[in-house]
């Protein structure tokens, strides 16, 4: 890699998740006069964004892309990169395996560091090193001393990967040895406590940062992982498209049998969102009463459509009626009405619910 010269300033690229750690790590390096750009990778599994937009009850919150907000606060330029397709390989075949759920955290980090290092800045120049907000011991799978060495090595970054929040607990990296950054100004955070980060945030005057509970990726969520496993099991192959993984974030999922699954909206925002899939999935709602919209994923037979309609009716205002009218719409525009009896609560077995 070309070394910085007196004619070319040192440039770094920071992995910006939108959380506090990457905000602070980048700020620490910016304060040393380094030219920094940020990068945020869109994998399709990001917690923010999609769910904020879908659910109506979350619409009172300010909708913002946290990575963009972080870059804006820091005054740096941000690359937002769509990696949905290439990220599949990480999710489907993680070399280092999964964490507690279907989270391939270690492979994910290696992937992102490698991608970042090989990017070109907005000025057309390569970056001299990568900044990561990792802290030793912060996360059980990927943020341990042993795994940090693996990430540095397998990403190809080696000593060009700098973790400013815990750098003093690690061997000096190239930017430190070359004097591009002053090691003494870096930090020695470790462990799961967030207090050191919060103290540093206060010192910098950052108050409105994102604090996603359970991380920023749906793959760390047990319920979400159960739904993804169900998708793979019933389709007979481990694969997905973006729509699949977005729909796993929406509604109640019930699978009465292997032929079909029902995705049932829980509130108005989800209802509206599911309407957008009318050309791809069979839709069911209750024509005679107010209630949720449901999508059918799979290949249901006639009886399955009646079962699905009875489930939808259970969640409608007609749940206590002896008969209601369910409206079934097919992707080709055909419609038919079914007169059905709503299921009672005990007629819907617990095991039909996926990821609850």
């Amino acid at each position, binding site marked *: 890699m070309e070394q910085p010269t007196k004619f070319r300033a040192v440039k770094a690229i920071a992995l910006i998740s939108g959380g506090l750690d990457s905000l602070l790590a980048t700020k620490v390096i910016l304060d040393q006069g380094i030219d920094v750009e940020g990068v*945020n990778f*869109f994998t399709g599994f*990001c917690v923010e*964004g*999609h769910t*904020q*937009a*879908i659910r109506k009850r979350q*619409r009172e919150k*300010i*909708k*913002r*892309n946290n*990575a*963009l*907000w972080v*870059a*804006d606060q820091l005054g*740096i*330029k*941000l*690359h*937002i*990169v*769509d990696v949905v397709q290439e990220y599949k390989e990480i999710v489907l075949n993680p070399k280092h395996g999964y964490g507690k759920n279907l989270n391939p955290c270690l492979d994910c980090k290696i992937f992102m560091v490698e991608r970042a290092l*090989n*990017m*070109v*800045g*907005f000025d*057309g120049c390569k970056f001299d090193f990568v900044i990561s907000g990792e802290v030793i011991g912060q996360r059980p799978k990927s943020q341990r001393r042993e795994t940090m060495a693996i990430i540095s090595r397998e990403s190809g970054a080696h000593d060009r990967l700098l973790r400013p929040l815990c750098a003093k607990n690690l061997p000096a990296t190239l930017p430190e040895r070359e004097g591009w950054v002053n090691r003494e100004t870096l930090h020695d955070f470790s462990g799961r406590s967030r207090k050191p980060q919060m103290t540093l945030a206060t010192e910098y005057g950052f108050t409105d940062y994102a604090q996603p509970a359970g991380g920023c990726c749906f793959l760390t969520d047990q319920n979400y992982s159960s739904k993804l496993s169900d998708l793979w099991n019933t389709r007979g192959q481990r694969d997905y498209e973006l729509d699949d993984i*977005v729909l796993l974030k929406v509604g109640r999922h019930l699978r009465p049998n292997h032929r079909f699954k029902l995705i049932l909206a829980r509130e108005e925002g989800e209802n509206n969102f599911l309407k*957008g899939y009318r050309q791809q999935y069979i839709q069911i709602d209750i024509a005679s009463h107010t209630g949720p919209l449901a999508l059918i994923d799979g290949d249901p037979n006639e009886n399955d459509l009646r079962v699905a309609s009875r489930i939808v009716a259970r969640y409608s205002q007609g749940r206590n009626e002896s008969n209601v009218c369910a409206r079934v719409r097919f992707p080709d525009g055909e419609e038919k009405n079914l007169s059905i009896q709503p299921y009672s609560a005990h007629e819907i077995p617990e095991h039909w619910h996926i990821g609850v």
Partner: protein
Amino acid sequence: MNSTTITLDTTGLLCPLPLIRAQDLAKELAPGSSFLLLASDPGVYYDIPAWCRMHGHEMFQVEESSQENVIQMWIKTAETTSRSSE
């Protein structure tokens, strides 16, 4: 109504995809070009102005059309090039 030559339709896409598509289009356009972004996710009300501010683009008009929930944003890309390998 401003005259624009390119329309980028991101309706139905959820954030950050409208932003990513706008970013990718802006890289392809000559500096100082204009385009119309159509979106349905209200997240663009924050994301697009922040992105424009960051990269020197100008969002010179915003409307919510009479069509259901379609947001229209007219954007002029920065006069100086801001590109990357992505």
